[in-house]
């Protein structure tokens, strides 16, 4: 028994995969740029917030080969990432799909229920719409982090010409740190996201490629936790026809 719905519009699917390419190149080249001076304190200063001050990122995690090359990639790929973000956010806005990720009252409680379920404190998967409350928070946090990354990036690219943006982050040194830290949080969310796709809902891969999603195999239908009830048809019959937030 399957219950197929068209879950992701082609605009969402295309922008998602363009994002994967653009973010891989942006973080790789960004880390190569960072390696030219792998500290946040100015020369002669300490920077207690970073316990790995002076520690470079392993070269295999970087992209662009050398500082100049990485800068060229970074300053070219940023336009693709920005254009992609405009298409994605514009689509969410015009199509009303921002409702799937916008925070609302009860999200904190729902997120807590999800955590309880994952920790075996709660037996049954909480009822959810398109995304569970944890997913929703992550997908909302990503564009917010993106905005911080873009602004702090402009702040360190043009600290004089766009000095008013740099001033939002105190100064060049702090803007550079915030640029790095918000990238690290975004990357962490992306890693957890990929982990959860394979550990909880591998069927969602299909929905991000062809757009089709089988609700009879949703984590809620399978009562799936990471690595638990990973495959096979769900035991519970799907209740709702619409694939959106109630």
């Amino acid at each position, binding site marked *: 028994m399957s219950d197929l719905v068209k879950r992701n519009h*082609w605009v969402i699917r*295309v922008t998602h*995969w*363009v994002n994967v*390419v653009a973010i*891989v*190149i942006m973080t790789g080249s960004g880390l190569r*740029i*960072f390696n*030219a*001076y792998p*500290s946040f304190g*100015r*020369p*002669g*200063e300490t920077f207690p917030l970073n316990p790995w001050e002076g520690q470079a990122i392993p070269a295999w995690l970087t*992209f662009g*080969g*050398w*500082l*100049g*090359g990485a*800068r*060229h*990639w970074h*300053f*070219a790929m940023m*336009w693709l990432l920005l254009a992609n973000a405009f298409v994605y956010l514009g689509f969410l806005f015009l199509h009303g799909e921002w409702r799937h990720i916008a925070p609302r009252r009860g999200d904190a409680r729902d997120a807590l229920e999800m955590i309880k379920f994952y920790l075996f404190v709660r037996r049954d998967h909480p009822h959810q719409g398109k995304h569970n409350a944890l997913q929703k928070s992550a997908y909302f946090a990503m564009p917010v982090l993106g905005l911080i990354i873009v602004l702090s990036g402009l702040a360190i690219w*043009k*600290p*004089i*010409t*766009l*000095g008013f943006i740099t*001033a939002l982050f105190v100064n*060049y*040194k702090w803007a*550079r740190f915030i640029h790095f830290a918000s990238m690290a949080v975004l990357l962490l969310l992306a890693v957890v996201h990929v982990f959860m796709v394979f550990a909880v809902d591998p069927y969602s891969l299909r929905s991000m490629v062809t757009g089709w999603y089988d609700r009879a195999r949703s984590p809620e239908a399978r009562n799936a936790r990471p690595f638990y009830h990973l495959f096979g048809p769900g035991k519970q019959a799907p209740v709702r026809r619409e694939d959106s937030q109630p």
Partner: protein
Amino acid sequence: MSLDRRRFLTISAATFSGTLLAACNKNPRGADKLLTLAESANESIERSIFRHDSMDRVPASAKVAGKDFPKYFISETVPMWDTAARGEWRLEVSGAVRRPVSLSLEALTKLPRVTQKVDHFCVEGWNARAVWSGVRVSDLARLVEPTADAQYVDFGGFDKGYHESWDMESAMHPATLVAYGMDGRMLSPAHGAPARVHSPVKLGYKNTKYLTRVVFMPARNGGYWSDQGYEWFAGT
């Protein structure tokens, strides 16, 4: 408007293989073309938003880097002007100008002096503060009267063949100095004595040290690091 599947797959495949190729340090020619295109597009955006009233606002209470200010030169040893062999050091200001001048250090220090505490932004990612004293390049330009042809300025020195050329707008920025003083003392050999370019509006490598010539030019002529693949514009 819809993207048909074949086209989508072709584009994705091209993008992915481009990425994989690029991962091996040597960029494919297509990627290099794209990067060059992006660099020139970025340069026109950067030049169009450049303003002479965008200033570096370092708080008066901010500490200067002092002895921690990194020292840099391309010669094997600290470049020193050898008066015995080369005569008195002079700064030649020439090129597409009506009245070229040759200034001794003493003459330079008698020109209107500007003292400013500003950032030095290195391409590597660090910044360092110092108090710089010197003459605005725009004041030197008033002295020599550049012709209408003068669109670029080349700053060259005696640290081997080091030089970097600038766009006129950045050179004429009020914070762009030919500096001979640092932190209240005359410039030391490690930091470019007797005089160097210093400006917060360009990355460090554009700020030629051990300066001997300022040449106004109708065309740009690259520079030591620009010729090795770093951005030529390098504005901040």
